Every structure is written in C-alpha cells, then in structure tokens.
C-alpha cells in the first residue's frame, strides 16, 4: 500500500547534495559516483520518515522536529586534542581514528602501525582501492530502502576504514571518534554530518572496536552515521558504541553487521545524548555457527527521546542471538525499544532471546517496549520479555537502614541497575569514562525524578 504524499524535507538536502556531487565527482571512482546517485534517488523518494501510522520502523518516534530543522553543510571545522580527551574515552595506547565533521583528521588520529591492522581514512581507502572497499562499501547498508542509510550514502566522501588481517588478534582496542566540531560555515546554523565507518574483520581475527560520538557544539546538530561491519569466518568482534551528542541534537545511527560462519559479534551501546537519538542495529547471521550479543544502556531525561531499533536475522542453522537492553528514564523523556528477531525457514537449531528492562524515575517518562520474534523454522529455542518498573521502596529502606541517606541510596540503586551493562565496557579508560558519565547523568535524572521514596 502506498500513499501519495510528498517526501518530507528532501529539498533541504538537495542543494547540498548537488554541491557535493559537483565537487566530488571528478575525484571519485565511477562506482562510488553511481552509488551516491542511486542513494540520492532513494532518499528523494522517501524523504525524512515523518509519517508514523502504518510505518513500523518509526511508529513511536516523531521525526517532525528533525524534518523542520534547517541544516548547513559547511567545510569541516577544527577541534583540539584536549577537547577530545576530556569529552570522550581516550587511551594513548589505543589505535584511534578521529573523524571531524565526517572528515578524517590525520593530526588528531593516533595510530601506531599495529601489525595486522589497516586503519585510517575511508577516502584514502577508496582512492587507493585498498582491500575490498569497492565490494564491501554500501553492500550491507545500501540494499534496503531506508531513508537515513540512503541519505548518508548519498553524501559518502570520507570517514573511517578499519581492516583486520586474517588470523590477527589485536591486543589493544581500535577507537573511532566521530566528532561534531560546532555550527556550520555561517557560524550559527546547525550542521549535518554523515559519518561513515567500514570494518572488515578477516577470517579468525579478533578486534575490540570502540565507536564514539562526541558533539562539541552547544547547538542542534544532525549526525547520520552508517557503520558496516563484516565479521569474517571465526572472527571475534567486540563492539562498543558511545553516543554523547548534546541535548539539542539529532542522532540517527545505523549499524549493519554481516556475520560469516562461527563468528562472534558482541555489541554494547551506551546512549545518553541527543534530543532524538536512534540506534538502529541489524545483524545478519549469514552462515552456520554465528553468534551475536547485542546489549545496551540508554538513559534519558528532560525531553529526550531515545529509540533502540534492534534486529537480527537468523538465515542459517545453529546460530544464536541475544538482545538485552536496559533503560533509565526520567523527566518527560521517552524511549523506544523495538527488538526483532527473524528466524528463517532454513535456520533450524536457532537460539534467540530478547529482553528489555526499564527503570522509570518519573511519572512523565514513557517507554514503548516491543520485543518480537518472527519464527519460520520449527526447531528453535526462543524467549522474550520486557518490563518497566520503579525503584523499589523496600530496597531503598534496606540501604537507608544501613546509614546511607536517601539521595545516595537512590543513586546507588539506579547505578546498580546500570552496572551489568557498564561491566561490558572492559577497556579500562572506556569503563572509567562511561562510569563517570553514568554517575553524572544519574544525578541529573534523579533531580527530575518524582516516583521514588513516595508512598
């Protein structure tokens, strides 16, 4: 069923697309030019998805504020290393790629020539025809008719490229920092950026990947990242996603993962930022024996909106998938958990579970949790569930009876709720960072809280 509606907000992006196209076309390989043009055609047809009725993907997230906002598309700005270090996780020993406003920064990146690792600018990987960039880029996130992957793809220029050689096990994490420097070229408008990351993990390789989004501006920006991860046979990819946009900004992120036989992909998201934040992740268990674990913590306050769109497709037998998310909501914020697992007819002996637990700290906060399983095979073990609860008064009394005052006791309980997700962030500097942000956020969320400790 189609509706004859005009796609929203397309014209706002068209001047920028045309300008970028003229600028890039002469430099880019023909295949990329055609990918971009195709993507633009798709986006022009779809527009920003403001229609929610009958649109499962956007049922609970209202994108009208985004469609109405104006963005500029200036040259990349500049940021200081100190600003990066104090606003995000950082460890000098990590291989770190820094992308400022969508453009790779050689001076801010910190790469150690680690053996087995190719890491750096996506633009250079494209122009040098490095690895399998041409075959891989946009092969996962280009197929589907999805407005934001199309929008990002229409603007593909630079970003980050990470490739791990076969049989290589990296001891230390690779971090990719996407930073928005500040307003666009005219100094006060909002900037739109399209970060792009391509990860190619070779057969039997092992990698810890940290993907960080920082926003150093104080005003509304738009970030539309697309990440494609190819997990080769027997590879192990541990992925961490830290989303820390400011509270005026829009962050509409898409991650697409393809897993070959016996690969393991685990991902934990830490989403605390943005006015409207979306974390759309899909894992394709494309060959037998693949396993994915998708987890995350989202914390919202004020008027924030966080949307977790989590999906896994079991295409082949003997794969397992685990989705487990936790939310802490306060103020008048809203969060969406939409978890979906599709087990195709071929995928016998699949194991799938989904869970979403929420802690509501205020009456005004709202969660829409919608775990769903679509199973077409008959030999499958699956379970799902979602809950929303409040801080328990018994528990609060227990802590207070030991001498811990009410405020500290509440903070301890909320932090305790988050703890198992924080435990996923193993690299020390990363763990310290998310812990610090969590404690800071909990204080703010508790200030907006009105549902606990009351009879």
């Amino acid at each position, binding site marked *: 069923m189609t509706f004859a509606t005009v796609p929203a907000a397309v014209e706002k992006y068209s001047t920028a697309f045309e300008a970028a196209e003229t600028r890039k076309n002469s430099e880019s390989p023909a295949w990329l030019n055609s990918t971009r043009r195709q993507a633009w055609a798709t986006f022009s047809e779809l527009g920003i998805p403001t229609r929610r009725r009958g649109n499962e993907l956007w049922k609970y997230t209202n994108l009208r504020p985004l469609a109405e906002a104006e963005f500029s598309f200036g040259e990349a700005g500049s940021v200081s290393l100190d600003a990066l270090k104090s606003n995000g996780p950082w460890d000098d020993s990590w291989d770190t790629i820094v992308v400022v406003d969508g453009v790779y920064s050689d001076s801010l990146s910190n790469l150690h020539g680690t053996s087995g690792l190719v890491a750096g600018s996506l633009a250079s990987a494209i122009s040098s025809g490095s690895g399998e960039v041409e075959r891989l880029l946009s092969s996962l996130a280009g197929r589907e008719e999805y407005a934001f992957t199309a929008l990002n793809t229409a603007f593909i220029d630079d970003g980050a490229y990470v490739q791990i050689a076969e049989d290589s096990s990296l001891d230390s994490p690779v971090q990719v920092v996407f930073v928005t420097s500040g307003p666009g070229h005219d100094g006060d408008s909002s900037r739109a950026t399209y970060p792009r990351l391509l990860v190619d993990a070779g057969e039997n390789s092992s990698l810890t990947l940290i993907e960080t989004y920082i926003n150093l501006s104080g005003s509304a920006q738009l970030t539309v990242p697309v990440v494609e991860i190819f997990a080769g046979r027997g590879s192990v990819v541990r992925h961490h996603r830290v989303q820390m946009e400011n509270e005026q900004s829009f962050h509409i992120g898409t991650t697409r993962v393809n897993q070959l036989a016996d690969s393991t992909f685990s991902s934990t998201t830490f989403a605390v930022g943005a006015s409207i934040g979306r974390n759309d992740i899909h894992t394709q268990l494309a060959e037998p024996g693949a396993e994915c674990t998708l987890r995350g913590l989202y914390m919202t306050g004020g008027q924030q909106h966080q949307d977790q769109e989590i999906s896994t497709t079991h295409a082949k037998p003997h794969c397992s998938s685990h989705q487990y998310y936790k939310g802490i909501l306060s103020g008048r914020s809203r969060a969406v958990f939409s978890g979906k697992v599709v087990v195709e007819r071929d995928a016998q002996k699949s194991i799938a579970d989904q869970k979403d637990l929420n802690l509501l700290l205020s009456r005004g906060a709202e969660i829409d949790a919608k775990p769903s399983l679509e199973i077409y095979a008959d030999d499958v073990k699956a379970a799902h569930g979602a809950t929303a609860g409040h801080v328990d008064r018994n528990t609060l009394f227990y802590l207070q009876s030991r001498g811990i*005052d*009410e405020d500290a006791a509440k903070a301890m309980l909320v932090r305790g709720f988050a703890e198992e997700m924080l435990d996923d962030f193993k690299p020390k500097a990363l763990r310290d960072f998310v812990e610090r942000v969590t404690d800071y956020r909990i204080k703010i969320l508790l200030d907006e809280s009105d549902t606990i400790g009351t009879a």
Partner: protein
Amino acid sequence: MLEIKNLQASVVDIEDSEILRGIDLRVNKGEVHAIMGPNGSGKSTLANVLMGRLDYEVTGGDILLEGKSIVDLPPEQRAHLGMFLAFQYPAEIPGVRPWQFLKAALDARADARGEEKMTVRNFSKLFDEKVEAVGINPQLVKRSLNEGFSGGEKKRNEMLQLEILQPSLAILDETDSGLDVDALRIVAEGVNSMRSPDRSFIIVTHYQRLLNYIRPDVVHILVQGKIMKTGGPELALEVEKDGYRNYLPAGATA
C-alpha cells in the same frame, strides 16, 4: 538505651490497620531481649517501626534512644545513632556489591558522626576477616548484594553486616530462621562475641533453640500487637511446650 512507650503504629494509607497496639519495652545497656510471638503478631512491624520504615505510621506513643525521641528521624539517622536491623527478608540489590555497599555505609556513618573514614586497605582487611568469620563463600560477596543468595546465605550476609557495622543496638528479626545448625552456631557466636556492657540486642525468634546458644536477659511474648508477658529465659521454654494459648487475650484465638 532504648525505651518504647505505649507505641502504636498502623500501615500508612490503610484505615483501621493498627498493628502495634500500645507497646511498652525498656532495653538497658548490655541487655539481650528476646521477642517471641505467633505469626502475624507484629514482631517484624515493631522491628521495622524501630528502624523507621515509612510504610508504617506511628499513631501514638514514643521511641526514645538514649533518652531522645527518634520517631521523626529517617532510617539513616537512626543507623548513625547506632541502630541496626537484621531483616527477616533481606532485599536483593542488583548491581550493588556487598563490599562497596558496606564501605559506603561505614563512610556515611563516619561522615555523620564527624569521624575519620576507614582506609580502603583497613576496610578490605576487616571485610575479608568477617566474610570468613560468618562463613560466606567469598565468591558470593563479589556478586550483587543478596541477589540469587539462598535464604541461609542472606541471613549470613545480615550477620556480616552486623559484625562490620558494630551497632550499639542490634535488632535481629528471625535471623535464625532457615539456618542450618552450623549457621545457627555462627549467628550465636557472632552475637555472643559482640555482647558487651555498651551494646544491646533485641532478638526476634520463633525458636527456643537459638536461646540455648544466646542466653537472653529478658523474654517478651508479643500477641496481637501487645506484649502479653515479660519474663526470664524460662518463658521461652514454656512457649516451646505450650504454645501461645496461655497468652491470648480473653476470648481470642491466635
């Protein structure tokens, strides 16, 4: 130490829900009092009201600690004054580790009293020592507080907290229920070793068995929210033999 005067309490927001119906009790320094009574007679309610649980409303009478009324103090301030409650049903607290929790409790009390905080090193030493003393599997205390603990393990964990916090007035609400013989001995040894001229205990129990190990100075029989009889350790033996029928108000059944 503690003086309870004509204490009446009901459940907040429930009409005509009076549970404690005029309790008088005086616990001197260094004494051990046992409270026995049928199920539902108000023992846990008394323990919780003493500790300041907000689900209950004190509708009459007073609670004095060292001569000062505490009925308007929040639970944490009662803890800072030296009170402790070992819960009949300890809460499970996901993501909060016992070590961290107890350190926070000690620090909060030190802050409130203007005392110096224990160093992490000294605390760790004390913690490990006490974990061993109460016989908790050290792996268990690395996990979330009480989460997935067995009934007995939870009770041992209450004992761990009691021994680390060293309160001056400890209320034990059926800490002996659900314990195996060894654990029971550990509870008794814990209490006996902590007995001192400055420390008092109120021990709620159903079983005379515990009182073989911990010899109480005074035994009270609580029935339908009132103390019906007060006596020495022999009272516990009587209850063991005859039940509570002798203490029921005229015309009532327990």
